[in-house]
């Protein structure tokens, strides 16, 4: 069997509560600056009790950055800003290649729908239909695909909090299948009252700033943002003017099949996803230099994920942290935002510290990294798990790339 071709990451784009672009995000990760604070932009009765990690930019300013109208969904605006950055970063001439845009989100244009709804409930003939025109998850993707001029392949994945990890490996699969040369892949989600109240009914929102993998963790903080990577084939990589960040060497999508929202105590799905991703990349647990945890800060996630890691790594634990302690949980965007951080960890040779850890979890034989560590990073494992038992893990690897 011939060796499968390497899929490289040629460009990165991100917008989150800790910065409006890759450079700002990296600076915040290095200096340990978190993005959550009292709610500023989102209008909710919970604004004084539930801190969130908002992108610190108005819709008008985002529209300016994105080159799109300000009245469309914030989810699309965030997506366009990050996707454009990723393409510019790759320095790629898109029209020369068969190209795809694979995005992900959890609630589409819900930020507009929830503003439309009160009037509509009063009178079914009222309300501006433009506000629901981008309600569908796919509609958000299309606004951006059209702005980028990508149409060879366009799709949207929605598997709750693992969505954009899935869009990234789908892009890599399609390149390996020979269907596409370049794929802009990632995800986006804006904060909405719908998701804020939804997570609030589950009683898993922390009223303070979240403390992933802490014994006394209380829950998660919601965040918003978007992240994209530009995946390129070997042939495309050879034409770029800079060295790729890394390769996407492994991935796996598995299902916990235990409960609608909760993870199984043994972390079955998480374990299968991590094992599968390692197998795909041809690596062993000891090859992993850093784990970017799903690490939401809920009781249930962290013990399930931690137990799965304890099982898989058996005493030989690499440094690990949850960057949700900076960005909050950005749902459909989180897998992609964390993919950008994984690529940065490899390029910069950095382990980003987890924030606010006070007491390591008693039931786990390891603890998350709390200080910035400079070291050579060869392989990063990144976890993204969601409702419905959807568990996906990705492996990013330093790429031997001799072209430049």
């Amino acid at each position: 069997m011939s060796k499968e071709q390497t899929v490289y990451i040629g460009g990165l784009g991100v917008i989150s509560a800790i910065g409006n672009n890759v450079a700002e995000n990296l600076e915040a990760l290095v200096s340990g600056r978190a993005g959550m604070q009292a709610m500023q932009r989102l209008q909710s009765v919970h604004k004084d009790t539930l801190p969130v990690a908002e992108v610190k930019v108005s819709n008008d300013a985002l529209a300016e950055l994105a080159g799109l109208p300000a009245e469309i969904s914030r989810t699309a605006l965030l997506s366009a800003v990050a996707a454009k950055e990723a393409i510019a970063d790759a320095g790629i001439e898109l029209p020369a290649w068969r190209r795809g845009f694979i995005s992900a989100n959890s609630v589409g244009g819900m930020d507009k729908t929830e503003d439309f709804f009160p009037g509509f409930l009063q009178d079914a003939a009222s309300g501006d239909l433009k506000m629901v025109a981008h309600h569908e998850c796919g509609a958000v993707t299309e606004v951006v695909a059209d702005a980028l001029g990508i149409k060879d392949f366009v799709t949207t994945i929605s598997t709750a909090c693992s969505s954009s990890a899935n869009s990234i490996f789908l892009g890599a699969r399609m390149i390996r299948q020979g269907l596409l040369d370049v794929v802009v892949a990632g995800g986006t989600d804006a904060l909405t009252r719908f998701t804020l109240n939804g997570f609030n009914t589950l009683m898993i929102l922390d009223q303070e700033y979240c403390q992933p993998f802490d014994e006394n963790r209380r829950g998660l903080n919601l965040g918003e943002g978007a992240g994209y990577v530009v995946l390129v084939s070997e042939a495309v990589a050879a034409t770029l003017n800079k060295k790729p960040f890394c390769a996407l060497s492994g991935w796996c999508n598995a299902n916990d099949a235990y409960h609608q929202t909760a993870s199984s105590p043994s972390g079955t799905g998480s374990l299968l996803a991590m094992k599968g991703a390692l197998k795909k990349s041809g690596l062993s647990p000891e090859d992993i230099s850093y784990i970017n945890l799903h690490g939401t800060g809920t009781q249930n996630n962290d013990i399930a994920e931690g137990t799965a890691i304890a099982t898989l790594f058996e005493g030989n634990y690499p440094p690990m942290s949850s960057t949700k302690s900076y960005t909050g949980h950005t749902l459909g965007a989180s897998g992609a935002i964390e993919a950008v951080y994984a690529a940065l960890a490899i390029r910069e040779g950095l382990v980003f510290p987890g924030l606010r850890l006070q007491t390591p979890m008693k039931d786990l034989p390891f603890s998350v990294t709390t200080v910035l560590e400079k070291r050579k990073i060869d392989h990063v494992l990144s976890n993204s798990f969601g409702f419905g038992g959807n568990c996906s893990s990705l492996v990013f690897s330093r790429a031997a790339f001799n072209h430049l």
Partner: protein
Amino acid sequence: MENKQELIHRLKEQIIKQLKLENKRPEDIGDHDPLFVDGLGLDSIDALELIVLLQQEYNIKLRSAEEGQDVFRSIDTMADYILEHSA
């Protein structure tokens, strides 16, 4: 305040409605039967629904899902909790 027996009966009706236990009648649920796993077979999502029920019908607010574990052991423990915490 009504007596405990009346409260228990009403609570059973409310639980059946809130949790959509369509093939259950109040008399099918024993006052001391465990509500979770072995007994009525409820799960963690139902526990959250019961927290909403307490707040909506009895104006009693639990602070966390963990607190519910003791309160929701059985219909009897729920009724006691409501009687203790109703103003």
